[in-house]
C-alpha cells in the first residue's frame, strides 16, 4: 500500500535510482552504467521550496525529472499526495494513469531561448496545456492566458507576439505562465534563472517567491548557484555523484554544514564584498568522480580532507542526525565544520 509517512509532505521520494546504460562497439554491448541517481531519498513539504544543489553532473536534473516522470526511474518510489487526498506511487504508474497527476506537477526550464517554440505565439504557448487538457473553447483559453500573463507581469496585449520579440527575462516569465496554466501544486524549476543577467535574475526570483505565496505552490528548485538557492529555499538538499549527502533547513545548512562536501561548496562561493575576502583559503582539490565508476566507500573520500580508513571501504548512509537534519558521512557527529559567517 502506497503511503506518505508524514502528513505535511506532498511528495516522498524513496530509494530513487536512475542508471543510464553505457553501450559500446558495433553490437552496442552494455559495458557499464552511469549511476546518475543512486538510491536517493528526499521529501517535499507542502508549500515549501526545497533547493537541490551540487556540481555539474551530480544528477540534479535527472532526479528532478524523475519526480515528474519526464525520466523513468530505474527503481524506487515517488509517492505523491494528489489534490483529492489519495497517495499514488508515480514510479509505478503507466502513462494513462499518470495523465491526471501530471497536471499537478509542472516544470520550468533553464533555457528560456530554446524551451519555447519559436513558431508559436504567446497565446499558443501558454494556451497549449489548456487545449491538451480539454479547454477547447477559444474564448475561455484567451481569458485564462490573459490572466496568466498578468500574473507573471507580462501585458496580455502581447498575446499574439512570437518569443523572439521578448528578452530573456520575459521569455522566462512566459515559461512560468505556461507551467502555471493548469494550476499545479508542485513546480519543478531546473536552473530557472541561471541563463539570466543579474538585474533580470532578481526580477524572476522575486516573481517566483510572490507566486508561491499567492498560489501556495511547492517548489523543487534546482540550481548550482548557492546564493540564489539560499535566497529562495526553506530547505536545501545537496547531491554529490548521484547521492544525497545532506538535507537541512537553509539556515542550519549555511550556518553549520554537517557534510564536508557542503562545507567545501559553501567555502568556494565568492562573497560579493571585498572586505570579506578570505585570508585563509581551504579549497577542494581534485575533480568530481566519474558516475560511471565511482570510488569505493564514500564517493567523496578521495577529495575529503577529513577522510579516514572507514571512508575508503564503507558506504555511509543518509541518516537523521538531528530532527530534520539528514547527512551521509561517517564522521558527521564528531566533525566541527564551518559555514558562512553572518
Amino acid at each position, binding site marked *: 500500500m502506497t503511503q506518505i509517512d508524514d502528513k505535511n509532505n506532498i511528495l516522498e521520494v524513496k530509494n530513487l535510482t536512475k542508471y543510464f546504460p553505457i553501450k559500446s562497439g558495433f553490437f552496442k554491448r552494455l559495458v557499464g552504467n552511469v549511476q546518475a541517481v543512486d538510491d536517493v531519498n528526499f521529501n517535499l513539504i507542502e508549500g515549501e521550496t526545497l533547493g537541490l544543489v551540487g556540481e555539474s553532473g551530480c544528477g540534479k536534473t535527472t532526479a528532478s525529472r524523475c519526480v515528474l516522470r519526464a525520466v523513468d526511474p530505474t527503481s524506487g518510489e515517488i509517492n505523491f499526495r494528489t489534490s483529492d487526498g489519495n497517495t499514488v506511487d508515480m514510479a509505478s504508474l503507466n502513462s494513462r494513469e499518470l495523465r491526471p497527476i501530471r497536471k499537478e506537477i509542472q516544470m520550468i526550464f533553464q533555457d528560456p531561448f530554446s524551451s519555447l517554440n519559436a513558431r508559436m505565439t504567446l497565446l499558443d504557448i501558454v494556451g497549449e496545456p489548456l487545449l491538451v487538457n480539454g479547454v477547447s473553447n477559444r474564448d475561455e483559453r484567451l481569458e485564462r492566458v490573459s490572466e496568466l500573463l498578468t500574473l507573471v507581469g507580462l501585458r496580455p496585449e502581447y498575446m499574439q507576439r512570437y518569443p523572439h520579440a521578448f528578452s530573456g527575462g520575459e521569455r522566462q516569465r512566459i515559461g512560468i505562465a505556461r507551467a502555471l496554466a493548469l494550476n499545479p501544486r508542485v513546480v519543478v524549476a531546473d536552473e530557472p534563472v541561471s541563463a539570466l543577467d543579474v538585474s533580470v535574475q532578481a526580477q524572476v526570483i522575486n516573481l517566483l517567491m510572490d507566486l508561491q505565496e499567492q498560489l501556495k505552490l511547492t517548489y523543487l528548485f534546482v540550481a548550482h548557484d548557492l546564493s540564489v538557492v*539560499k535566497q529562495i529555499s526553506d530547505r536545501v538538499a545537496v547531491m554529490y555523484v548521484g547521492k544525497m549527502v545532506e538535507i537541512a533547513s537553509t539556515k542550519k545548512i549555511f550556518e553549520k554544514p554537517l557534510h564536508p562536501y557542503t562545507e567545501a561548496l559553501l567555502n568556494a562561493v565568492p562573497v560579493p564584498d*571585498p572586505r570579506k575576502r578570505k585570508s585563509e583559503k581551504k579549497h577542494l582539490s581534485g575533480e568530481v568522480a566519474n558516475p560511471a565508476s565511482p570510488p569505493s566507500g564514500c564517493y567523496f573520500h578521495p577529495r575529503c580532507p577529513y577522510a579516514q580508513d572507514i571512508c575508503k571501504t564503507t558506504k555511509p548512509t543518509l541518516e537523521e542526525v538531528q530532527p530534520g537534519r539528514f547527512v551521509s558521512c561517517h564522521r558527521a557527529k564528531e566533525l566541527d565544520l564551518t559555514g558562512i559567517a553572518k
Partner: protein
Amino acid sequence: MNDKEKLLSVEDLKIHFPTDEGIVKAVDGVSFDLEAGKTLGIVGESGCGKSTVGKGILNILEKPGRIVGGSIYWNSDGNKVDLAAINPNSPTMRSVRGSEIALVFQEPMTSFSPVHSVGNQIIEMIMLHKDMNKKEAKEWAMELFDMVGIPNASTRVNNYAHEFSGGLRQRAMIAMAISCEPKLLIADEPTTALDVTTQAQILDLLQELQQKHQMAMILITHNLGVVAEVCDDVSVMYLGRGAEKGPVDSIFHDSKHPYTKGLLESIPSINSAQGERLKSIVGTIPAPFNRPNGCTFHPRCPSSIKGVCDTYTPKYLPLNNEEKVSCFLHHDPEKEVV
C-alpha cells in the same frame, strides 16, 4: 598613479560594428588604466561590450568590428605605444600579442583545435614566440602543465582537448596563455562555465601565478562575487560605456553610479537572509539599435533627473585621483551641457 607606473591606459575607446541593420556601438567610450602586477575587473551585464574591449586591446576584433576612436597606450619597457593607432598586422602588434599581452577566452572548447593534441598546440605557440627548439619547448610545456596544476603532465601533453574536463581545459588554456610570460593577462570569463569549487581553484591559480610573475590581469566577468574576491580596481560598463570605475572597495561600499548600486542590490548574496525579496533594477537592457537618448541608463534609473538625464549625455569624468563616473548626480549639468 603617475604616467610612468601605468602599464596600460585606455582612453575613450570606441569600437563599432557596422552591420546591414545599422552600426552596433559595442564599445562607445571606455577609459581605464592598469598598473603592473595589479588586477582590474571589467563588469557589466551581457552585451555591454566587455569581450569587445578585451579583443580590442589586442586588435583581434571579429569583422566588421573596428576601433573608431580613442587610444590604448601600452607601456612596453618604457616605450609607450598606442595599440589603437598601429596596424593590427604590424610586427609591433604581433610581438605584443605573442609575448607581452595574452588572452584567455570565454569558451575554452573553441580555443583549442580538436585535431591536434593540446600539448602540441602549446609547444607550437612556444616555438613561435620564444627562442627554443622542440625539445626545450616540450620541457617548458610540461613545466607549465605542472605550474597550472594539470596532473601527470607527461601523458597529459599528448591528450586532445575533448579528453580534458572543463576545469583541466581551462588550466591548459592558462598554461598556453602564460607560456610566453606575458606582462598582462586578459582573462575573459575564465570561470563562467565552471562549478564553484573548480572556479575557486582556477581563481587561486591565477592569483598565485600573478604574484609569482608580477603579471597584471584584466578579469572580465559578470560575477560580482569573483570581482570582490580578486580585483584591485573595477570598471563597470553599461551599454558600451564606462559607467563608473574605481578601487574595489569604493565600488562595493561607496558606489557612485545608480547602475552599480542597482547591480549590487540585485545579486543574492551568500550572506543575505533567506526569503528576502531582492531589490531589482526595473526594465531590461535595451536592444543595440534602440539606445535611449541622453544617459543610456535613464529609463531604468531611480534617480534620473527630468530634462537633464533624458536629454544630455553625461561625460565620463574623474571625481578624484582614483574614481571616474558618468552621471549627472555627480557632475554639474550646467557646466557640462553646452
